[in-house]
């Protein structure tokens, strides 16, 4: 009980600190931009939010403009791994945060709008009619900020649950420490998500996936709210990957009944069957697609709103407006904590629902 409480307290503290650190950051910008007009501040905030939402090639904690009007970045560079007629590995510090070209084995790479393009020695970017760069993009397997965080979450989850599992063995089948907090959640996923949606008979083989995805999404979402502020789930690539898993597992474990109900719905007239088949088939793709979009959009929207309100503190620049928006941000932050868990729950729940429809056996024909 005490441990549980302390975990809550730590989470809460981290959460508070996140505000402080973000606030500090903006303050610095505020000082730097003080002589300029207010519109600039708004633009800065917008840029900052956009920047915050994107992945980056270095692990930046914060950056500011110093007295000599130079941008100072606090953080560490990360390795860039490119596949461009051979493996090219170098540190992202070569880009100098997009200010210079990186030269590797006679090839020049430029960081433009957070993407790496291959350029000539001068770093020219060619645009097409819609102002999209037409330069070649090398295959990019860089260890970006998000990849680092995925690694971190990977390690945290692995060691946390491994310890929990070994505590069961040492403790004669009873949970210990963190396990006491996590066990009810594990049991909840088993008894209230997996069993009712998939069915008593088949639920066992999906348990590993459901548990992993729930805790992964949850922990990742919570990390997005910490001062490190790395949002992994607001990358479409990540949510796409997770949704793809659900789709692939649904598809490959589906029984004959599932396909029958998609392509040749029993109990309806033949013309209807022909019309229904493509709709149903499209449905199987839309389901994971909505999973992907939902998680992505919820987390992204939450962050945009939260950060906009934090930014508003500096736009108002008076004690009433600022304290009001601080209060609003505080409430929203708590809401985001809820959303972090809720989205993990929804993702797991709907995945279980889809798995359930895949292995369902229809006795009656309607």
């Amino acid at each position, binding site marked *: 009980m005490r441990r549980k409480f302390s975990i809550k307290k730590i989470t809460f503290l981290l959460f508070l600190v996140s505000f402080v650190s973000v606030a500090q950051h903006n303050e610095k910008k505020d000082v730097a931009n003080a002589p300029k007009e207010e519109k600039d501040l708004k633009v800065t905030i917008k840029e900052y939010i956009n920047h915050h939402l*994107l*992945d980056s090639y270095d692990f930046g904690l914060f950056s500011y403009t110093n007295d000599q009007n130079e941008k100072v970045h606090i953080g560490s560079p990360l390795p860039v*791994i490119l596949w461009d007629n051979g493996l090219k590995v170098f540190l992202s510090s070569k880009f100098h945060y997009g200010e210079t070209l990186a030269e590797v084995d006679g090839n020049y790479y430029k960081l433009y709008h957070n993407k790496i393009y291959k350029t000539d020695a001068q770093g020219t970017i060619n645009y097409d009619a819609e102002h999209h760069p037409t330069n070649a993009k090398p*295959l*990019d*397997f*860089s*260890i*970006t900020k*998000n*990849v680092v965080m*995925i*690694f971190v979450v*990977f390690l945290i*989850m*692995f060691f946390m*649950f*491994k310890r*929990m*599992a*070994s505590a*069961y*063995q040492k403790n004669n*089948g*009873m949970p210990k420490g963190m*396990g006491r907090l996590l*066990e009810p959640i*594990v*049991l909840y996923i*088993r008894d209230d998500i997996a069993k009712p949606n998939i069915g008593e008979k088949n639920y066992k083989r999906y*348990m*590993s*996936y459901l*548990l*992993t995805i729930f805790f*992964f999404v949850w922990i990742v979402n919570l990390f997005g709210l910490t001062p490190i502020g790395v949002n992994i789930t607001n*990358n*479409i*690539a*990540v949510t*796409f*990957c*997770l949704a*793809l*898993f659900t789709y692939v597992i649904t598809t490959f474990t589906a029984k004959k009944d599932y396909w029958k109900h998609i392509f040749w719905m029993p109990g309806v007239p033949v013309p209807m069957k022909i019309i229904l088949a493509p709709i149903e088939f499209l449905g199987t793709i839309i389901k994971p697609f909505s999973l992907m979009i939902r998680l*992505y959009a919820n987390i992204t929207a939450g962050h945009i709103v939260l950060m906009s309100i934090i930014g508003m503190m500096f736009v108002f620049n008076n004690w009433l407006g600022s304290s009001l928006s601080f209060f609003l941000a505080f409430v929203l932050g708590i809401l985001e904590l809820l959303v972090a868990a809720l989205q993990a729950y929804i993702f797991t729940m709907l995945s279980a629902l889809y798995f359930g429809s895949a292995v369902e056996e229809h006795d009656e024909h309607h």
Partner: protein
Amino acid sequence: MDKLLSEFSLGLFFWQLLLFVGLVLLLKKFAWKPILDAVNEREEGIKKALESAENAKKEMQNLASDNEALIKEARAERDAMLKEAREIREKMISEAKEDAKEQGAKMIENAVTAIDQEKQAALAHLKKEVGDLSMIIAKAILKKELSSQEDQIKLVEGMLKDVTLN
């Protein structure tokens, strides 16, 4: 939609895929399986314990009712035995009484017959004795008669005075 597509990063997708597959497999082996097994085992253990407790309770109840039945039976048996004993005792007493009565009656009867017989015998004996005596008297009378008439009468009278017929 454009924004989404342009944001899509193959590298991130690749790493996420790799790490997530790894995570699922590793956790399955090292965490979920042992945890779920332990939880299952515990739940089954609890279920079993509950069941056995229920069984024990039932058994206890059975035992209690058994005991009661036994006690009842024993009591009934004891009552029956006591009753029987009492009956036997009464029977024995009454039998003994009857026996004694019969025996007594018999004995009395025997005594009566014995007395009768003795009496008959005594009477017979007396008759014989009387006969003998009369014979002796008669002899003596006859002898005296022969000597003197007077004497003879005197003798007879004297003798008759002595002899008392019972």
